[in-house]
């Protein structure tokens, strides 16, 4: 099959699914719409696999397939094509998207069973997949931007899926507008690149960028990449634009799994990896990315500790894990970033789906204080969730371990890294272990606090099947990227497959030295040790000694409240940016438009009117006044004549 046809199938299949479900949006059968949508994504998945196989068959240096559907915009030097590029990076990405996406579609069939608008739901999901594929495959920044905005749109629609609830509609709007801020910066980034390099094609940019390697703050590459990074912070929920993601949990849970954990939010990371030569040319940007990333890790993890909504905990966890990916990008460890992106997609999607299963079982109850002891009601959910838990903890042997420790190691070891980055990263890992264990403990273990009227029940097989698959992937997913040190002691010395696969895409960090194996082992031990201790503490506290937690939080109440209220960032944004802006707008409308400009026009009118009535008042019919005007006119004329 020709590549163009294959690409067409890959892209068109979800689009057609979207259209079919969109036009039959009034049907209520979850099974029919779900199957249509799932099949659409599955076809895409098959196409993705075929692409991957095709790349496998190529020589490593020439692994790239470009399908060009022709020109989109063509104005003088600006020439943008509908070009879609499959290379090792995007081929893996589309596998993840369609693979995980397919599983989540399947899960949704069960989860959305009772919803009336299920066809619309599946239409949106397919629409999302379509846009995500465009984002990933787009060969120029503009094509990428099409998907970039498209996924934002899908996200908006899905977050506000239950739009009759004002809060949920607001959450969708918040997500879209926050993303738009990033998108505006993304546009500026594109313009900078276009004006400096004359192209927006990603491969051409990657080839051209190293020629401008620079260290100033105002250089082309630095500014351009910084603006792109702002765009990425919007999409990938980093400081300062992360605020939309926790609110985005208003959407149906599978949506949170697909969009707000596994795929869309990683788009920013993907963008940076995609353009890694350009970013490497701008060390200042890299530093900013690393710092923002690690700060996000710590901030989000600390908020995660205090949250009581199962999805909110996972949301902050996602923000925090995305922070790791950015940290990795910032220190130049793009492979590690992608590796973590992939493993995170597995285990976070798993945990979100697991939480969905829990919520489903609890009849839409999301507060973990009202759960506990669900292990015996939901054995499968518990088991699979535990796999995700172990993975995110970084338990040796599970996928998260490999990816996270590689990131931590690189943040120490890389010439772009710093020990403080490692320290904060490790702190983040410790906190992660704490809040994830807390979540497990409060949800599944310990005593049941489930209200009497709720009778939890295990989900249907159609929901469990994706959980199981993802659980397996969470466990074994790490083996494609076994770090060199670990590989060296394992039997058969397995290589880092992922690094090899991405070898031609990811540029090596300039000036990197040979790894110090002993050091690496030490750091690995430290972080794993810290995580274990913290997990153990959390387990003890939340399974057995909840009173102790209570009294402790009471002691540090101000701090606890601050963290519980998410450091008041939302309030800050609303209090100091959004509300003043709205008030400002009201004022400029009232004062500038109505009171000033309109008044001015009235004044102009009144001036004419007044002038008219003044002149009219001169015509008062009094003969002597007329004579006076003659006299005055005479005086004026004479004066004028004499002044000459």
């Amino acid at each position, binding site marked *: 099959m020709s590549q163009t046809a294959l690409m067409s199938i890959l892209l068109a299949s979800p689009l057609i699914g979207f259209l079919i479900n969109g036009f039959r949006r009034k049907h209520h059968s979850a099974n029919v719409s779900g199957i249509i949508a799932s099949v659409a994504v599955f076809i895409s998945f098959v196409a993705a696999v075929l692409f991957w196989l095709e790349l496998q068959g190529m020589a490593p240096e020439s692994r790239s397939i470009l399908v060009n559907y022709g020109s989109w915009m063509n104005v003088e030097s600006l020439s943008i094509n509908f070009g879609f590029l499959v290379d090792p990076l995007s081929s893996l990405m589309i596998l993840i998207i369609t693979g995980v996406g397919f599983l989540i579609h399947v899960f949704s069939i069960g989860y959305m069973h009772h919803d009336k608008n299920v066809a619309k739901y599946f239409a949106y999901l397919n629409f999302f997949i379509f846009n995500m594929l465009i984002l990933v495959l787009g060969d120029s920044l503009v094509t990428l931007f099409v998907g970039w905005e498209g996924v934002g749109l899908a996200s908006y629609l899905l977050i506000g899926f239950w739009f009759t609830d004002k809060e949920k509609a607001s959450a969708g709007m918040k997500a879209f507008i926050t993303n738009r801020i990033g998108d505006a910066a993304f546009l500026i980034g594109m313009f900078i690149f276009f004006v400096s390099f004359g192209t927006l094609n990603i491969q051409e940019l990657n080839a051209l960028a190293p020629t401008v390697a620079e260290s100033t703050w105002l250089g082309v590459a630095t500014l351009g990449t910084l603006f792109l990074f702002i765009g990425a912070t919007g999409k990938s929920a980093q400081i300062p634009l992360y605020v939309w993601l926790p609110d985005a949990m208003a959407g149906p849970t599978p949506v949170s799994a697909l969009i707000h954990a596994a795929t869309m939010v990683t788009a920013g990371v993907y963008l940076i990896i995609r353009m890694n030569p350009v970013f490497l040319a701008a060390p200042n940007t890299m530093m900013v990315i690393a710092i923002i990333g690690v700060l996000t890790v710590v901030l989000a993890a600390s908020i995660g500790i205090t949250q009581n909504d199962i999805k909110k905990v996972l949301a902050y966890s996602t923000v925090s894990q995305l922070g790791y990916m950015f940290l990795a990008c910032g220190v130049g460890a793009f492979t590690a970033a992608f590796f973590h992106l992939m493993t995170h997609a597995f285990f976070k999607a798993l945990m979100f789906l697991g939480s969905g299963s829990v919520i489903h079982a609890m009849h839409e109850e999301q507060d973990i204080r009202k759960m506990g002891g669900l292990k015996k009601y939901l054995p499968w959910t518990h088991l699979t969730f535990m796999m995700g838990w172990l993975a995110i903890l970084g338990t040796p042997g599970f996928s998260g371990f490999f990816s996270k420790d590689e990131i931590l190691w690189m943040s120490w070891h890389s010439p772009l890294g710093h020990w403080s980055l490692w320290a904060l990263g490790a702190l983040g890992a410790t906190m992660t272990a704490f809040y994830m264990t807390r979540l497990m403990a409060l949800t599944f273990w310990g005593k049941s606090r489930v209200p009497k009227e709720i009778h939890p029940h295990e989900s249907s097989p159609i929901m469990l099947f994706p959980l199981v698959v993802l659980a397996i992937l969470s466990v074994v997913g790490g083996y494609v990227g076994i770090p060199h040190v670990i590989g060296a002691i394992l039997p058969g010395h397995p290589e880092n497959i992922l690094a090899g696969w991405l070898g031609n895409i990811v540029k090596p960090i300039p000036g990197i030295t040979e790894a110090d194996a002993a050091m690496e082992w030490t750091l690995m031990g430290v972080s794993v040790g810290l995580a274990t201790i913290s997990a153990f503490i959390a387990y003890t506290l939340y399974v057995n000694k909840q009173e102790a937690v209570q009294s402790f939080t009471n002691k540090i109440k101000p701090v606890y409240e601050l963290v519980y209220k998410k450091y008041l960032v939302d309030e800050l944004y609303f209090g100091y940016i959004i509300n003043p802006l709205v008030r400002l707008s009201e004022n400029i409308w009232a004062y500038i438009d109505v009171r000033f400009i309109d008044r001015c026009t009235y004044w102009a009118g009144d001036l004419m009117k007044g002038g008219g009535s003044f002149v*009219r008042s*001169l*015509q*008062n*019919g*009094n*003969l*002597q006044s007329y*004579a006076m005007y003659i006299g005055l006119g005479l005086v004026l004329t004479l004066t004028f004549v004499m002044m000459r």
Partner: protein
Amino acid sequence: MVNTNVFLEIGLNHYLVLSTVLFCLGMIGVLLRKNAIVMLMSIELMLNAVNISFIAFGKYNSNIDGQIMVFFVMTIAAAEAAVGLALAVSIFKRFKEVNIRFFEHLKG
């Protein structure tokens, strides 16, 4: 001495200044008086002032046309006085009033 000359040697300018003063007096009368008949008188005053300057110019330029002009002016003045007074009479007959303030029908 200039000062004595100004008073002793009478020239064209003296007559012109006299004419100006008289003219402006007439004008003040026209502008300020209420009585329509007095206004007409003031107009006569102004015409007389002009006549003075005509004659003076005629004399100092040795041109008799100045006097001819005065002759005409006088005729017109007489005619004007007649018409003006006739109007005044007619107005008075109707309104029993010659105060100019009551006749503001030209108001715009």
